[in-house]
């Protein structure tokens, strides 16, 4: 074996990467050749120098930065920008023309989508989610009394309530409000105007609720900005939470100030103010120290999300008698064909105790009559087998809810869902409350 050939094999020999036969031959040569042995020694010294270089650990917080980048990238990448013509319209139309257009639009929506009454009221719910969206034909607020009105009416009522006391007025145990679904001023860093919905979750066990919400979000591939920290920095998360907090703790702000568009104030609310927010006039409060989740999802996933959250009730019944009480409702844009009624009815997600084996998607039981009202979960012990059946039905329901969306073949829009945790209303305190005190 010649020295030149051996020399070329020395690196691999040093690294123990030669096949055994060749390594044996090289070793034989090295034993007899001082020059090649010296060459091997020099390579060994060189690799020793390289191995001696200190390893530099990643800077502190790099994993957090990566998480932020991923979140931001995903949030910014999903939605397609809305057509520019809306922006142009907004700029062109004067205030008066805009108001006139809004009235005409509301009237048109009302005429085109005349209310289709639900087959049955849903009186055992005390939480809700609703959307504020020009595309939604109707708002369905589900509480002790079901409100089912055209968008225009509901928004007008909301506006009046806001003007009265700076907060929405709702009777205790009736319907918790959204926090206003305000635009949270992220225009600078997002390409479109994602819709912001509020989901109020009434739960006795916040830890269990938190885990469940995140599990549901994860299972649906929904991105969750979880465990939002109080106010760490001027980050995307901070702006999101600030959009919630500023709205919630500033009930006395003037209507002009509230209506003023743009980003939320830069200053963060004081810790004391953040501690507990009298979220509404009724007995419920939203504790600012508790987690607030912001879920970012395609609009198409909204029905699934609400359905899955509602399914929590079954588990709560099985595990803890006074367990969580997830009830939510979301409105699906009404269809214009003969299936409109069925779709509208199925748009209201029945509470899991109502998603029983005898209930079909139209909200009626197998006899064709409205499903009976089921007592609250605390009073019902749901057996395991019906629970499974109900889960299956919930899955079917979710599929049904998503169908109209798939058929519409529209580009999915990004929707932010802010999840608030509230304490369930004690039965004794569930007295109707008056309008909030005027400031």
């Amino acid at each position, binding site marked *: 074996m010649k020295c030149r050939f051996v020399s070329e094999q020395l690196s691999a020999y040093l690294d123990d990467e030669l096949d055994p036969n060749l390594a044996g031959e090289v070793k034989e040569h090295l034993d007899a050749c001082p020059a090649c042995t010296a060459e091997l020694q020099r390579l060994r010294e060189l690799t020793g120098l390289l191995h001696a270089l*200190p390893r*530099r650990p*990643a800077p502190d917080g790099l994993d957090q930065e990566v998480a932020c980048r991923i979140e931001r990238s995903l949030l910014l990448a999903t939605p397609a920008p809305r057509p520019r013509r809306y922006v142009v319209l907004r700029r062109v139309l004067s205030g008066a023309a805009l108001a006139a257009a809004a009235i005409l639009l509301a009237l048109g929506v009302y005429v085109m989508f005349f209310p289709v009454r639900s087959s049955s009221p849903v009186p055992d719910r005390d939480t809700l989610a609703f959307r504020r969206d020009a595309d939604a034909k109707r708002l369905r607020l589900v509480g002790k009394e079901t409100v089912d009105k055209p968008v225009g009416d509901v928004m007008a009522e909301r506006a009046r309530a806001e003007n009265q006391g700076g907060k929405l007025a709702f009777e205790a145990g009736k319907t918790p409000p959204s926090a206003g679904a305000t635009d949270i001023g992220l225009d600078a860093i997002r390409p479109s105007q994602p819709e912001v919905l509020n989901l109020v979750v009434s739960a006795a066990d916040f830890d269990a609720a938190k885990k469940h919400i995140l599990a549901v979000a994860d299972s649906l591939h929904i991105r969750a900005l979880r465990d939002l920290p109080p106010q760490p920095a001027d980050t995307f998360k901070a702006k999101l939470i600030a959009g919630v907090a500023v709205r919630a703790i500033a009930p006395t702000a003037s209507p002009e100030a509230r209506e003023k568009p743009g980003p939320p104030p830069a200053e963060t609310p004081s810790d004391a103010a953040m501690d507990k927010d009298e979220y509404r006039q009724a007995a419920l409060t939203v504790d600012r120290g508790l987690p607030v989740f912001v879920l970012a999802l395609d609009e198409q996933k909204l029905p699934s999300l609400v359905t899955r959250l509602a399914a929590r009730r079954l588990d709560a019944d099985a595990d803890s008698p006074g367990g969580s009480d997830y009830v939510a409702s979301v409105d699906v844009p009404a269809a214009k064909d003969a299936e409109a009624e069925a779709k509208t009815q199925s748009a209201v997600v029945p509470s899991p105790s109502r998603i029983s084996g005898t209930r079909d998607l139209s909200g009626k039981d197998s006899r064709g009559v409205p499903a009976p009202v089921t007592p609250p979960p605390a009073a019902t012990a749901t057996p395991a087998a019906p629970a499974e059946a109900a889960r299956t039905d919930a899955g079917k329901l979710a599929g049904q809810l998503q169908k109209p969306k798939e058929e519409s073949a529209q580009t999915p829009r990004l929707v932010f869902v802010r999840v608030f945790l509230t304490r369930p209303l004690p039965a004794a305190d569930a007295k109707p409350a008056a309008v909030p005190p005027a400031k």
Partner: protein
Amino acid sequence: MASRDSQVEDLKCVAAVKGGRPDAFGDVVKRYQDRIFNTIYRLLGDYQEAGDLTQQAFLKAYLSLNQFRGGSTFYTWLYRIGVNTALDERKRRSRTPQVLSETFIMSPDEDARRLDGSAASDDPGEMVLSRERETAVAQAIASLDDVHRTVLVLRDIEGLDYEEIAQVAACPRGTVKSRLHRARLMLREKLKGFVQ
């Protein structure tokens, strides 16, 4: 390099992320951030930039996780993204005249090390010599061309075997062998003063 257990863990994390648990990617980041960072640092020779590029590499990995089919081990796939990220940055810099490709910007603690009593040796002469040696080695690595520097860093600093380097560098094992030998010879030439 990675144990079978850690490879299984990697695949579990990947499956979890693909299955709708994006938080599982955090485990991947924590497990590999030091190695990817050190690789990029040694390839690029710029401590400040290495942190940002490491973040970019993980972001790319997350966004293209669906393209990981399991044809190679996960960490070599990750290394490949990290290496490509660093080399892309090198190319970008080479097109910028004012940035010299052979500069080497040490980490702050590395730069100040051995002057604050934290050195392994108490001999001031040995401390100075050791520091000079490390600086020279780092600069010599930074002066190699991309292909040779890549195999050298992956083998002699990161400890990958030839098969793994072949996966990262997307070249045959024989090419890795010849490139590595060539890289060591070039480096030895540049470090004559430190190698007999």
